[in-house]
């Protein structure tokens, strides 16, 4: 399949597809980060994670429309406001969900999965009732449009670079929160031994709620970033949930580094394959490879051997 291209063309193809893959990688990482916190740290499967992301996307869309019609002067920077709002909206809904639903089910992971699936259906229908069934797009400010030419044959879109920068920033922040801050230590303490953590004075309920809220909030930010690379519809979130879970599981559930590495390898494989075959076959082959590897190595790429 490489025969029809010259060597330099192939080089450009790989770089361009690689870059396209990097955008996909950014979206995966952002979505997976929230999931890695909720699933990796709390052990909760949140099937509505995609809907929390889409909530962030809709908030971004609303902000964009509002700024455009009322404060056109500020349009060039609206995106930062939208991201903050998306974080707050998804985070708040996440905390509400934890309080109303998740906290009753900590010992029943499979039931949590079903209940959050129910929540995802409700959210989807709510989106449809409020925003309509049609997909909406967000208009980007002028400075984000266009691309940077690097060589004659290679150019990269600016919004892609922006999303990537954002991803790096958020990843560093999350890594700091989970692994360096006092609160992160509390989260890990609660995960490892709930009763003991409670006994030494950690407010486990509060930690649970904030952790879940943080994970959902990050999903909201991911939704903001998502509007730059795709259009938003009521069921857009559902399309990504399985991919995102695979990213987290493939990386080894508790490992942040693993999540990033697996998001990278999965997105690169898919976007490179996409150039040589139809998108659906590329996806089938990527997913099949992951599932096959997971069957041989269920603990994922990065995992510790622990004393049970």
């Amino acid at each position, binding site marked *: 399949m490489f025969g029809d291209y010259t060597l330099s063309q192939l080089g450009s193809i790989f770089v361009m597809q690689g870059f396209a893959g990097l955008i996909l990688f950014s979206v995966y990482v952002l979505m997976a980060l929230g999931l890695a916190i909720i699933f990796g740290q709390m052990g909760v499967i949140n099937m509505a994670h995609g809907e929390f992301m889409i909530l962030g996307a809709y908030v971004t869309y609303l902000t964009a429309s509002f700024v455009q019609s009322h404060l056109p002067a500020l349009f060039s920077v609206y995106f930062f406001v939208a991201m903050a709002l998306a974080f707050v909206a998804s985070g708040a809904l996440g905390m509400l969900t934890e309080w109303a639903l998740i906290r009753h089910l900590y010992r029943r992971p499979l039931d949590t999965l079903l209940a959050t699936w129910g929540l995802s*259906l409700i959210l989807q229908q709510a989106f449809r009732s409020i925003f309509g069934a049609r997909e909406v797009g967000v208009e980007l400010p002028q400075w984000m449009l266009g691309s940077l030419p690097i060589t004659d044959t290679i150019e990269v879109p600016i919004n892609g670079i922006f999303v990537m920068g954002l991803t790096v920033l958020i990843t560093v922040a999350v890594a700091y929160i989970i692994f360096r801050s006092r609160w992160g230590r509390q989260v890990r303490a609660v995960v490892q031994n709930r009763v003991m953590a409670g006994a030494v004075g950690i407010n486990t309920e509060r930690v649970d709620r904030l952790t879940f809220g943080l994970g959902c909030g990050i999903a909201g930010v991911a939704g903001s970033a998502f509007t730059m690379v795709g259009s938003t519809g009521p069921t857009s979130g559902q399309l990504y949930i399985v991919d995102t879970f695979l990213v987290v*599981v493939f990386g080894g559930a508790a490992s942040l580094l693993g999540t990033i590495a697996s998001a990278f390898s999965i997105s690169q494989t898919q976007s490179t394959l996409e150039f040589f075959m139809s998108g659906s076959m590329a996806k089938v082959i990527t997913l099949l490879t992951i599932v096959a590897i997971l069957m041989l190595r269920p603990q994922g790429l990065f995992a510790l051997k622990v004393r049970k």
Partner: protein
Amino acid sequence: MIENTRFASRSELVGIAALALLLVVVLPLTLDVFRLNLVGKYLTYAFVALGLVLCWGYGGILSLGQGVFFGLGGYCMAMFLKLEASSPENTKIQSTPGIPDFMDWNQITELPLFWQPFHSLTFTIAAIILVPGVFAFIIGAAMFKRRVGGTYFAIITQAIAAILTILIVGQQGYTGGINGMTDLRTLKGWDIRPDHAKVVLYFVCVACLFGCIFVAQLIRHSKLGRILVAMRDKEDRVRFSGYSVANFKIFAFCVAAVFAAIGGAMFALQVGFMSPSFVGIVPSIEMVIYAAVGGRLSILGAVYGTLLVNFAKTSFSESFPELWLFGLGGLFIAVVLAFPNGVAGLWSDYVQPRLVRLVTPRKAGWSAPNAVAEGAPAE
């Protein structure tokens, strides 16, 4: 009572008889052919729910990919029917007569190799059982031998459902793509479309369902059924009683897969088409809710749960299409938070004691007609 190892206790026999009365006598006498066919379609999902009761309710293995097996069974059946409907005489207007229409539309000029054996009904019936069974065995062996289970297994099965759907949709020349295989007409020359054929197929479906219920009861009342319960409770202890936990899980998963596949095949026969919309993540999880609503530990409950949810879905979708997803979503949450034992649990907790109280004063020793009560896993 504790020494009872037959396939059903007395009260269960009454329940099975009540279900048989409903499905074999009451519904066919009261419903028109259109509605009866609809019930027949719902019942094909009950096969899936029945399998889930065994593997999820009893074995604790939640598969979110049962649509895969439903689809494999359905597609095997549909391939046979499609080949019969694509005889050279029927398809003489095509550029390549004698192959299914969607292949012709996709510039395929020769029947693919894996389609060839589906000219034979015997092969097709064997494939309906074996393809999903072997596939489930491979997945089960790979996962359970490595001690993978719980949510992790659920995610993997979900991914497999996603993969199969994308594959079917993407390879439309070989599978009929997103529209699926439509326009299925005859089974060995017998037209499956007219009303009387639909009634016959309904009864075939009910017969198969009772066959599966019988098998499920046998398993539940054997020592294997008790081992499944024990495993869900204390997997390690079962291992240290000398059992290979993985093998028992593989068995339960394979049985559930074969049940689902039989349901899929009956679906293709009764509804006259098969499409990827019954394979993917969404239908697969929806089938779990049938088992959950019926009561995850109740074999007969699976049938009632399936019928209830689907009747609700049909009537909601007819009058308030927007409310249905809210309703279904709420159902997922309610059944998990408030009624973990589903309809069967409600029946045995509230209805049955009252019935017993009503009946016993008049005639002692007569057990209540409990249709779905079998909340306790062991007698």
